[in-house]
Structures are given as C-alpha cells and as structure tokens.
C-alpha cells in the first residue's frame, strides 16, 4: 500500500469545484511530480492534503490511516509537512525562530539542535543570517528557509508547492539539488511545479493536472517524451 493514497478527491471554494475527483498515490520514498498550468488545481490539492482546506468528497489516506478531515496542526504530528506556495515564511521572526517554528511539534531539544545545525550545513546562507528577521531575506533565501523549516519537523511526506517560483536559475538549481538530497535520505516527496521539465527530471513519476482533473499519469521519462506534454508544458 502506498504511503499517500488519494481517491476521488473533490475540493471546492464555496460551491465552485476546483479539484474534481482526482486520484493518485505516492509510495514510500518516492519523488512524484504534479504538474499543470495556472489554475489547474495543484495548490488546492496540496492544501487539501495538508488539512488547510476541507475536501467536499473523496478520501486521503496517509500510511493507511484516513487523514481526509484531519486539521493541519494535527497532520504535521503524523509526518506531513507542506512548504506552501509563496513560501509563507514568518517575515517578522528571525531565521532561527522560523526554523524553531518548524520544530514546534518536537520535544527532543537535543535532536532539534542537531537538526538546526544540519539545516545550517545544508544552507550556509541561513546560518550567516540566523539572527536576521526573515523579511530581509532574498526570495531564494526565503525558499531555503521555508524548506528548512519544513524539514525541521522531520516529515515523512514533504509537499512542495512551486519551490522554483520567482527564483533566478542558479537559485532554482540549488533548491532542486536540496530536494534531490532530501529525497535520497528517504523522505517521500510530492512536488508541484509549473516548471514541468525540471520537475520531471528529478521525479520518478508524474501526474498532469488540467482543470481540476488528472489528465495524464506516467513515468517521468514517458511524460517527457509524450508529444502532448511537450507541446503543452515544455513549450516545444
């Protein structure tokens, strides 16, 4: 059984359906991409998985247990962490306080300290700016902080919503290296991206979302080769 199982998920905003009965799964240790155009419903899907939106139909199972109606502050205790679209760092908190918020659910102080140093090793830029308020960081640094913060909870499933958004190519490359590193360590990842090529290059499988439905599902290699994907999402 897959770590994350989504079946017939429906999510709407006040009666307007944004996600119309989608199903997909992510196995333990996998890195799976979810791609699609603007307004396809990717963010809505992730928000529903993370408990920020309540599904109007269908089910979500994590590690065999239903999390369909679990509120977000309990979900993270089960091991599901979301790096939200637009990063959502706490701009008035320091870098270190942001990371501490990531470890809010943890009681093992020693482990948290070790992980903090690990994050600083992963993102040396954050270490230099640890006492600075996060609002003064560049976009790329904020994205690093958002990812580091999510990792501080020691998630089993990491949901990433457009980590490349608005970043310079060099920074995007750095962020994707980190994502691959995290994946290699065994964290299961669901990666939402508009940058389809990049996402499919690091993921093993991918789903394509269109108007609230999943239109294609295949291995990354097959999707990268598919004329449909090439035309619509790779700009060829």
């Amino acid at each position, binding site marked *: 059984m897959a770590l994350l199982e989504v079946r017939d998920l429906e999510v709407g905003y006040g009666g307007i359906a944004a996600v119309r009965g989608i199903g997909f799964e992510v196995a333990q240790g996998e890195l799976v991409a979810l791609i699609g155009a603007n307004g396809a419903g990717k963010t809505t899907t992730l928000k529903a998985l993370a408990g920020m939106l309540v599904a109007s139909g269908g089910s979500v199972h994590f590690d065999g247990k239903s999390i369909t109606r679990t509120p*977000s*502050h309990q979900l993270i205790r089960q091991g599901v962490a979301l790096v*939200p679209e637009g990063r*959502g760092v*706490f701009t008035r908190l320091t870098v270190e306080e942001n990371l501490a*918020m990531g470890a*809010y659910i943890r009681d093992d102080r020693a482990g948290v300290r070790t992980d903090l140093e690990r994050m600083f090793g992963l993102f040396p830029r954050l270490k230099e700016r640890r006492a600075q308020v996060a609002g003064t960081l560049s976009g790329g640094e904020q994205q690093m902080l958002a990812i580091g913060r999510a990792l501080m*909870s020691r998630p089993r499933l990491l949901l990433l919503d457009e980590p490349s958004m608005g970043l310079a190519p060099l920074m995007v490359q750095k962020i994707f290296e980190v994502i691959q590193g995290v994946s290699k360590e065994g964290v299961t990842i669901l990666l939402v991206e508009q940058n389809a090529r990049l996402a499919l290059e690091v993921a093993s499988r991918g789903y394509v979302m269109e108007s609230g439905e999943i239109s294609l599902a295949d291995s990354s290699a097959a999707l990268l080769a598919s004329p449909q994907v090439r035309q619509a999402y790779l700009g060829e």
Partner: protein
Amino acid sequence: MDIFLQQLINGLTLGSVYAIVALGYTMVYGIIQLINFAHGEVVMVGAMVALSVISALTGAQIGLPPVVIVLAGIACAIPACMAIGYGMERIAYRPLRKAPRLAPLITAIGISIILQHVALLVFSRNPLSFPQIMPNPVFEIAGAHISAVQIAIIGGSVVVMAGLTFLVYRTRLGIAMRATSENVQVAGLMGVNIDRVISSTFVIGAALAAIAGVMIGTYYGIAHYTMGAMLGLKAFSAAVLGGIGNLAGAMLGGVLLGVVEAMGAGYIGEFTDLCQAPWIAGLMTERCADGGNFVLFGSNYQDVFAFLVLIAVLIFRPSGLLGERVSDRA
C-alpha cells in the same frame, strides 16, 4: 513645588497602568484583528475582586500582615479575570471568528454592558473605597512628591512589561503567538493549535488587566462598576498611539498618554486663564485683580487629552508611532 516634575511623576504612574491595559488590547488585536472593547471591564472586575478580598480579610481581623492581604487580593483578582478573558473569547468571540468584522465589535460592546451590570449586582452601585491598610509614605525629590504606591505601580509595571516581553520573545508560546499573528494558516501548518493560542492571548491580557485594576484601584483609592469604560478607552487610545498590534508601541503609547494627560491637567488651567491675556484682563479688572483668575478649562478636563491624542494620531499617523504601515502587514 515643581509642577512639571510633579505632573511627570503622576503621568508616569497613570501611564504605567495605561500601558499594561493597552498591552491587552494590542495583543488580542495582533492575533485576531479584534478590538476587544470589553477589556476595560476586565480591569474593573480585577479592581472589584481585589477590593472585596482585601476588605474581607481586613474586616476579619485575623492579624494578617497588610502585604499578605494585598497580595491575596491580587492573587484572587488574576484568576478571576483570566476566567472572564477565557470565557468571553470562548463563548462570544470564537463563534464569530468568520463573521464580518462589525459583529464581534458589537458583541464586545454587549459584553462590556453585561460585565458592568453583573458587577453592579454582585458588588455595589456606589463606589467602594479601598481600605487604607498600609502606610503610604510620601517622599520628596527635587520639590516634587512621590508616594510609595506610585513607586510600587511604576516598579510593578516595569516588572510586568519585562515579564511579558520575555514571554513573547523567548518562550515557545510567545514565538507561536507571533507566528500566528503574522500568518494563521502557516502557523497551523507548523502544528500550532490556533484556538489555544488565541485563548492564551485573551487569558494573558486578562491577567495583565487584573494587575492594572489593582494598581488603579489602589492609586485612586476607589473602585466603581463603571470605572473600566473610560480607562479602557484611554488604554485603547494608547495602543493606537503606539501602533496597534505592536507590543513596544502599547508600552510607549501608554506611558506617553499618561504623561500628556498629566501635563495637560497640570497646565490647562494656567493656559486657559483669561486673566493671563492682558486685553481681557483689562476688561475684567475686578475679577482679575489681586491674582484672581478666570479659568476656562480646569483640570477636570483631563480626560479630553487622551482623545485629542487619539484624533491627532488617526489624522497624522494612523499606523501609530511604532506601527508598520498597514499595507506592509498584508
């Protein structure tokens, strides 16, 4: 006697109390963008409860030292107010969290009225006086007087403000509160139970209100069921002056407002004495003779200053002294 120094001391005393009450307004606003207009009433309840306990213990004549009696009063007022703070959020505000902003605002006014009238029934319609159980020596510095009560109020408020600052900036709850005030949804993602943070904010604010109630009651020597209304409005003005939602702003705004008010009260009589204007004095020679005066506004106009300050802030600097521009907060 030096009027300036004297009014500065009086202003700092009053301002310390305003600051502590203003913190309650600003903390709640920072978390849920609600002006809890019933907060002043919590101060009143704190004063009433403390006064009742102190009176009862004094009347019982069981030989408790006065300091213990006063501390017992505070120790009862704090949990009583915390319970009210918790209750009003739980019962009145939480169900309205997604309602239009006007609904909780009107509710706040309703809670004020309820609390006032419950206090009227439970305590008294008439002002109750704080029994003078401790000597209140007055010290003289540079021609001005400062009483032991004033020293205790100013010193106590410094301790309270330092404690709150520690809580907000150094503890897990405090960091969660600041995270929640910036982004409720993301704080939830981090595992913060938002309901609990909001409750804690009300409860902490109410504890501060209880302390302020004991301070103001001891300072003026009386407590009355309507005392919270004006005090609450002034503390709210202080919070707006400092920048609502900003803790340091509430402290600064409170102290400044107290000083402005005291200075105003100290000098308004002089400035509005028509006999000081020669051309008027010439018209009213009889009245102005031999140091006579014709004061337009006496120090009983003291309450006006808080609201003049509020109006001035709203016109010239709506975000307050330390507040961020509203567009930055979005």
